[in-house]
């Protein structure tokens, strides 16, 4: 994977040098922005029940993270930015005694307080069985999205939407969710009759629908597939390469910390961005899009935000 990362970084830099003659100056960028609607995407993944900050004696992340601090950061951004979409890529459950004791109730209540717009389902969200997840859904006032799990023969039937379209200042944003293969990862008795379907086929179908039928300007996939694997296992990198029409994949599962989003050339020869912010609510991901609802021309601004 390290080789792959190096390659991706190099191709990023390659892109920069090619730009020598085409670089915008800050003034023209400002003019460009003026005709566009700014959409601020904030995101988390694999928060794993980390309600409180890491303890001060933690070797890796002393005093980092914490849901109350995340909530304050989000609030602060909302006071500045008009069009915010707050999303999560799954594995909200499991990792601290808060989950063992309360089953995810507080996690969902806090996310509701922070006004999350949507989340997808990670493998650990099945840790108290499909009943455990179902029992907690009333505490979430945001939808769970997934397009490649078939829940028809389970108690979640009709409770998980494939996608949701958000409208912000005439810009339409289509968001859908993709889940990882559960067999071998999660005990069968926990996910019960949940059927896993091919994520690439499902993603391509829904992205095409969002683009041509729902007329979305921006298409976002919340994925719990994982960033990349040495094997052929389907990952966000594979998903990006094998699909069309997805502008941004917000990833999870592999707890990958990215300094900046990875750009991958997709099946339509366009760029699909992938971003992931590690785990445990240590960071809040942020990507700003500038979109002209008439032309679909937009620029991106990304930053990974440390919660300290």
């Amino acid at each position, binding site marked *: 994977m390290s080789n792959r990362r190096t390659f991706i970084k190099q191709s990023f830099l390659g892109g920069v040098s090619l730009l020598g003659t085409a670089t915008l100056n800050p003034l023209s960028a400002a003019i460009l922005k003026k005709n566009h609607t700014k959409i601020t995407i904030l995101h988390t993944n694999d928060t794993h029940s980390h309600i409180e900050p890491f303890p001060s004696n933690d070797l890796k992340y002393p005093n980092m993270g914490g849901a109350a601090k995340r909530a304050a*950061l989000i609030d602060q951004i909302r006071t500045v930015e008009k069009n915010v979409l707050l999303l999560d890529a799954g594995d909200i459950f499991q990792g601290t005694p808060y989950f063992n004791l309360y089953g995810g109730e507080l996690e969902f209540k806090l996310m509701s307080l922070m006004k999350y717009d949507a989340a997808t389902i990670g493998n650990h969200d099945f840790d108290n069985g499909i009943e455990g997840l179902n029992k907690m859904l009333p505490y979430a006032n945001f939808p769970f999205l997934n397009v490649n799990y078939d829940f028809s023969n389970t108690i979640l039937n009709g409770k998980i939407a494939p996608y949701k379209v958000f409208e912000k200042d005439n810009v339409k944003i289509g968001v859908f969710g993709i889940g990882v293969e559960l067999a071998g990862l999660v005990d069968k008795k926990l996910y019960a009759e949940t059927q896993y379907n091919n994520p690439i086929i499902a993603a391509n179908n829904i992205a095409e629908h969002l683009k041509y039928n729902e007329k979305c300007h921006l298409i976002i996939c919340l994925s719990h597939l994982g960033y990349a694997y040495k094997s052929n296992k389907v990952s966000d990198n594979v998903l990006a390469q094998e699909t069309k029409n997805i502008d941004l994949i917000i990833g999870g599962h592999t707890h990958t910390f990215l300094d900046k989003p990875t750009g991958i050339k997709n099946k339509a020869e366009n760029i699909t961005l992938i971003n992931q912010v590690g785990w445990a609510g240590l960071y809040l991901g942020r990507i700003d899009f500038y979109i002209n609802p008439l*032309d679909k021309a937009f620029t991106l601004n*990304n*930053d990974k935000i440390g919660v300290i």
Partner: protein
Amino acid sequence: MQFFFLTYQFSAIKKVVAVVFITFLLACQPAVYEKTQDSSINIIETTIEHQQATVLISPYKEKLEKEMNEVLVLSAEEFPKEKGKPETKLGNLVADLSMEIAQKIHDGNIDVCMLNFGGLRTSLPKGEITRGKIFELMPFENELVVVTLSEIKFLELMEYLKNVGGQPISGLSFDFTINIENEIKNLFSQEGTSEINILTSDYLANGGDNMTFFLNPINYEKVGIKLRDAIIQYCVEQHAQGKQLNGKIEGRIIYE
């Protein structure tokens, strides 16, 4: 303010190209990826807490702390987390109690328990043992499972045990100064069996800590309890019987 630009081609290229070209008379660069320092610095330095969120967390936190501070049992002595020993009091305690609790729940026979030292994450102090301390000892969600192994796989297990210098075991003692192969042959023929049932965690049964001999077993069954819950149950039962935790070192694994 410093700007840094990269170019990407998003969909609807032609329209975008027109916009950029006409407006700025630049080369055909349709969409721009821009990395700025904009407002991110303030956000990084934010250390305040959201008051409503803190208020929401507070009763959950109090109840959790109360529960984690609950004393489950008293320990008559310290059980240190030790490295480089074939047998430790802590390892024996957890392996023995796993056998005891699993045998109550599991239908079939269990012959031996083997866990790993790496999975026991902290020492137990002398005196009060809290629920929180058990969460520190066993933070993972590992479940107890019973794996049925053939004589050949069990020999691999014993060779592994010899090579790594011991792991927590129960239901077995072994002297590695004598020939393992003969000893195991005798053991199996005395018992008149070709299989042995090993209690372990699902993590190890899936080959964790290089325990590859557990892979592709004759049979694999979940006991139906997490290792942490088994430890908690044992502590509660001991306390109910008026007992304290006592350590044992009894030469279960001998190398010389």
